[in-house]
């Protein structure tokens, strides 16, 4: 038996010592309430300026020529015709003769012209001579005997074998075994705002409006790549249309944009088009498995033996956690990364977890079917012990009740007619801790407050929670607070990845506004003739604790600052945030077995994230995550032509994304854990949707589709197969 925990994060001690000076309020007035985004109105009325909306005087449009070949050597690049084309102000080769391109869409050359159309036209005048090399389009082709070895160290990189317990004994103890394989597709991020930036030079100072998840990280990378001091670079991201893990620096296009701007002596806007975006800005790797698993007659998992593989594209990994959450005491897992000539992967919303969850949760249902046991009861039996970051035992029954799990039929909807309904469920876990954020707060003599922090809002509501926490701490209405974020000239905050932003930023804001309040209290205490320590701020007043009449209105208190605003700097401190979330999701689907079309009708989500800062924005993360999960389950698929290796659907037409009518009814229950402090919620809600949906489809139609997306083609093929063999689940 294994004595090391299967998943190190699970059951980690996660209850922080509360912060001594500025603990979260026991009875908050704003924190945890349903508060609208502060920038909602200007976003929906089009006034918010995203990078794409930045137009500089005399600005040009940059475009990148990308390799049409998935694998080739550059022989020659001729820029002369393009440089003479109408409107063109700068042209550059990105790669030099002799260099290799490893995927379709890799950057080869670039230019800037007065209009976007001129830039696009001129791009086609750049003449590149390629020596086309053999390529590998798919995992299957890479694994084929005699496949061309296109990567330096081979097409396949074997990873470590993870092992625990005694596998042989585990299988001996099994009353039933399941042998099955599962697979997930490559999914691209499809941020609505594509990657890119606007660059403008003033001498050797660069200002760049970048669509990025890391204003500070992007500044560093610009400085390094362009060999200028970090102090000379300013990165601005006031509003952003999503990144999902794919936007952590200037990227090739940012550096190209800066160089074109320098060459042209004018500002250049370079944002990718949708095709570039699908090809070259990252993706979630595919995953595939062959698993043998055993379960005892009384429904305890005994053994798990898996071979897994996946492709993260050209030279990039494809790892994912497996098995996921449930306790397999005896287990072995071998993983191989398969390299293909396709755009490399990048972190994508809960990297690896949706894959690990899918493989494991599909398997759980198959094992439960073997046992003829309710899959929910079976799951609960095999969960790790309960802990603050491992609350599934509690959440599963809550969600089951809300969802109506008791109405679930055994596998295969017996209702006559072509529409079959089914239910499925799955669990998730995530880290979501953060730190290392600084902030600057100014209280002005007129009572207005500025809170400045160099974090960024990916569209999730960061600016709103900065305003909420500041207003909560100062006891004033949010309208008095101006939250300023998204600028590398503001105090440092880290990149927004791994659901670290809320737990990184919230404590810094709490501490900084707490310090500002202390300073103000010290200023007004003598006038009130009390000790500053007796003062509190609430309801727009600073007053003696327990005696609101003995005090001052906020504005009157601020007037005492005279001419000089009060300014303090603070930073993240321990005791206000934590790490480790858990959640569960249930899905209901309707499958038309005569057309193969599946529709997700309902999703129920029970999720925690420590202390909830804003109920609305937290729910919004769940909604977005679930919609993303539905897309992953049914629609999204990066399809590469098996012959040429070109992506055939680099658009939003055949790369399907749910529209409003494809989105299920979503029921969200957030479990508040105020004692733990703030934890991120960006990633966990997207993890288990696809697994729950796929389980629901199997429950509906009585045939298991072991790979996503669940297309009509797969449903019809699976049903025809079942008809042929006469088998059921």
């Amino acid at each position, binding site marked *: 038996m294994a004595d090391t925990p299967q998943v190190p994060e699970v059951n980690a001690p996660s209850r922080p010592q509360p912060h001594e000076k500025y603990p979260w309020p026991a009875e908050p007035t704003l924190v945890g309430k349903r508060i609208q985004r502060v920038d909602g109105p200007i976003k929906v009325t089009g006034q918010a300026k995203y990078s794409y909306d930045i137009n500089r005087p005399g600005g040009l449009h940059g475009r990148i020529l990308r390799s049409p070949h998935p694998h080739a050597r550059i022989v020659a690049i001729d820029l002369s015709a393009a440089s003479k084309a109408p409107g063109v102000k700068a042209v550059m080769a990105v790669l030099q003769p002799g260099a290799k391109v490893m995927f379709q869409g890799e950057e080869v050359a670039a230019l800037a012209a007065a209009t976007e159309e001129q830039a696009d036209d001129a791009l086609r005048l750049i003449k590149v001579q390629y020596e086309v090399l053999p390529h590998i389009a798919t995992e299957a082709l890479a694994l084929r005997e005699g496949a061309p070895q296109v990567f330096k160290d081979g097409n396949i990189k074997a990873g470590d074998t993870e092992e625990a317990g005694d596998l042989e004994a585990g299988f001996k103890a099994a009353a039933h075994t399941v042998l099955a394989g599962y697979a997930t597709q490559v999914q691209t991020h499809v941020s609505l705002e594509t990657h890119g930036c606007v660059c403008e030079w003033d001498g050797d100072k660069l200002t760049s409006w970048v669509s990025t998840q890391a204003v500070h990280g992007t500044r560093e990378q610009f400085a390094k790549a362009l060999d200028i001091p970090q102090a000379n670079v300013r990165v601005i991201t006031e509003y952003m249309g999503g990144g999902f893990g794919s936007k952590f620096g200037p990227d090739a296009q940012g550096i190209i944009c800066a160089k074109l701007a320098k060459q042209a002596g004018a500002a250049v806007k370079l944002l990718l088009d949708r095709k570039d975006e699908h090809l070259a800005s990252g993706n979630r790797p595919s995953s595939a498995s062959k698993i043998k698993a055993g379960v005892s007659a009384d429904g305890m998992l005994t053994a798990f033996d898996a071979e897994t593989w996946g492709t993260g594209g050209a030279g990039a990994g494809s790892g994912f956690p497996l098995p996921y959450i449930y306790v397999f005491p005896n287990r072995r897992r071998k993983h191989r990364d398969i390299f293909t000539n396709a755009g490399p992967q990048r972190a994508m919303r809960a990297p690896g977890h949706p894959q690990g969850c899918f493989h494991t949760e599909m398997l759980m249902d198959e094992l439960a079917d073997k046992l003829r046991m309710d899959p929910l009861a079976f799951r609960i039996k095999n969960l790790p012990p309960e802990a603050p970051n491992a609350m599934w035992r509690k959440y599963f029954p809550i969600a089951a009740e809300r969802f109506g799990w008791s109405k679930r039929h055994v596998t295969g909807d017996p209702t006559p007619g072509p529409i079959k309904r089914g239910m499925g469920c799955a669990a998730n876990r995530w880290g979501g801790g953060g730190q290392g954020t600084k902030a600057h707060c100014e209280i002005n003599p007129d009572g207005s407050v500025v809170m400045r922090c160099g974090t960024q809002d990916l569209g999730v509501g960061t600016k709103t929670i900065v305003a909420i926490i500041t207003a909560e701490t100062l006891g004033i209405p949010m309208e008095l607070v101006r939250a300023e974020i998204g600028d590398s000239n503001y105090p440092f905050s880290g990149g927004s990845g791994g659901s670290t932003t809320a737990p990184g930023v919230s404590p810094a804001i709490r501490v900084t506004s707490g310090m500002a309040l202390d300073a103000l209290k010290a200023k007004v205490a003598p006038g009130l003739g009390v000790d500053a320590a007796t003062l509190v701020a609430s309801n727009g007043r600073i007053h003696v604790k327990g005696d609101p009449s003995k005090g001052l209105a906020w504005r009157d208190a601020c007037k005492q600052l005279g001419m000089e605003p009060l300014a303090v700097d603070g930073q993240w401190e321990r005791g206000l945030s934590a790490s480790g979330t858990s959640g569960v999701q249930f899905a209901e689907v309707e499958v038309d077995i*005569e*057309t193969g079309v599946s*529709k997700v009708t309902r999703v129920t989500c029970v999720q925690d994230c420590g202390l909830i800062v804003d109920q609305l924005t937290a729910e919004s993360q769940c909604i977005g995550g679930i919609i993303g999960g539905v897309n992953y389950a049914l629609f999204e698929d990066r399809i590469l032509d098996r*012959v040429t290796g070109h992506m*055939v659907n680099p658009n939003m037409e055949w790369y399907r994304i*749910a*529209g409003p009518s*494809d989105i299920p009814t979503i029921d969200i229950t957030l479990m508040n854990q105020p004692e733990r402090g703030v934890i991120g919620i960006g990633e966990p809600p997207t993890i288990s949707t696809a697994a729950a949906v796929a389980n629901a489809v199997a429950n509906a139609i009585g045939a298991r589709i072991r790979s996503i997306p669940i297309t009509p*083609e797969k449903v*019809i093929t699976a049903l025809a197969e079942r008809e042929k063999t006469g088998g059921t689940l």
Partner: protein
Amino acid sequence: MKAFAYVNAANQQEALAALSTATRGRRLPLAGGTDLLGLMKDYVAEPDVLVNVKNLPAGIAVPAQGLAVIGAAATLTDVADHAALAKTYPALTDAARGVGTPQIRNVGTVGGNLMQRPRCWYFRNEEFHCLKKGGARCFAVEGENQYHAIFGDGPCHIVHPSSLAPPLIAYNARIKVAGPQGEREIEAGTFFLMPDRNMFGETVLEPTELVTEVVIPTPRNVSAATYEVKFKQSHDWSIVTASVALRMSGGGGGVVESARVVLGAVAPVPWRSLPAEQMLKGKRVDEAVAWQAAEAALADARPMSGNGYKVQVAKTALRRAIMKATGAKVV
């Protein structure tokens, strides 16, 4: 997108005059632009001149007696929302309602819908120089063909994308066309051409000609319906569409005197199925007859490597269209 000149024709005459010297692909009519602009941005179409044809007839008339007339410049929304059309030609208005998204329907026109180019992903991506673009091969044959044709045997395996064409053919509509030689009327069923007859276009229309109107006979004793199968509920192309028009015999009793059956998204042209029509003739329609008609319609299907499932989808679409035409409730 390649730079082009624009002729803002005020009416049909001016448009025809501007197109009188047109050669294939060089001078093109521009209606709503929902199709053409995308092709131009993707460098699949590179015209020198665009001629505005939004000022062509745009009215819709549905007289109690005689022919219904729809102007080429009528939008898909005009068609979808037209109460009298919906009453007499539900198979057409249903199809119009299913097109793309509200934005596409508000801008896309009837003429443009019939003349739109295929959605084949090899055709639409610049880097594939396929047969239809003058190249040497059809990439779909050995490649990704899950949405391609199950009828027609190539050499190009597109499916015709128009949602309006199947019901128009089922209603036996005619397409009015004007050109330098004057006007002509073409049966909707012969308007579209297979790739062996026209590789670089999908219809009989000459580059100098324009679609001006669609005329539809009054359906007497006709029960018609369209049934589309889409993966997404909106903003998606049909996997298969079926339109049927059943002319019921005068004596009542629900016997089919004659039928017109057209499948969409299964072949390079809207695919009229004579075997299904034959099967329905003289029958009293019920589920079993609808099944037989669907089996008959797909008996000759020749799926490619990756689209065999479309045979099943097409059978379902047709069966449901037939039952819907009889007034039965279908899912």
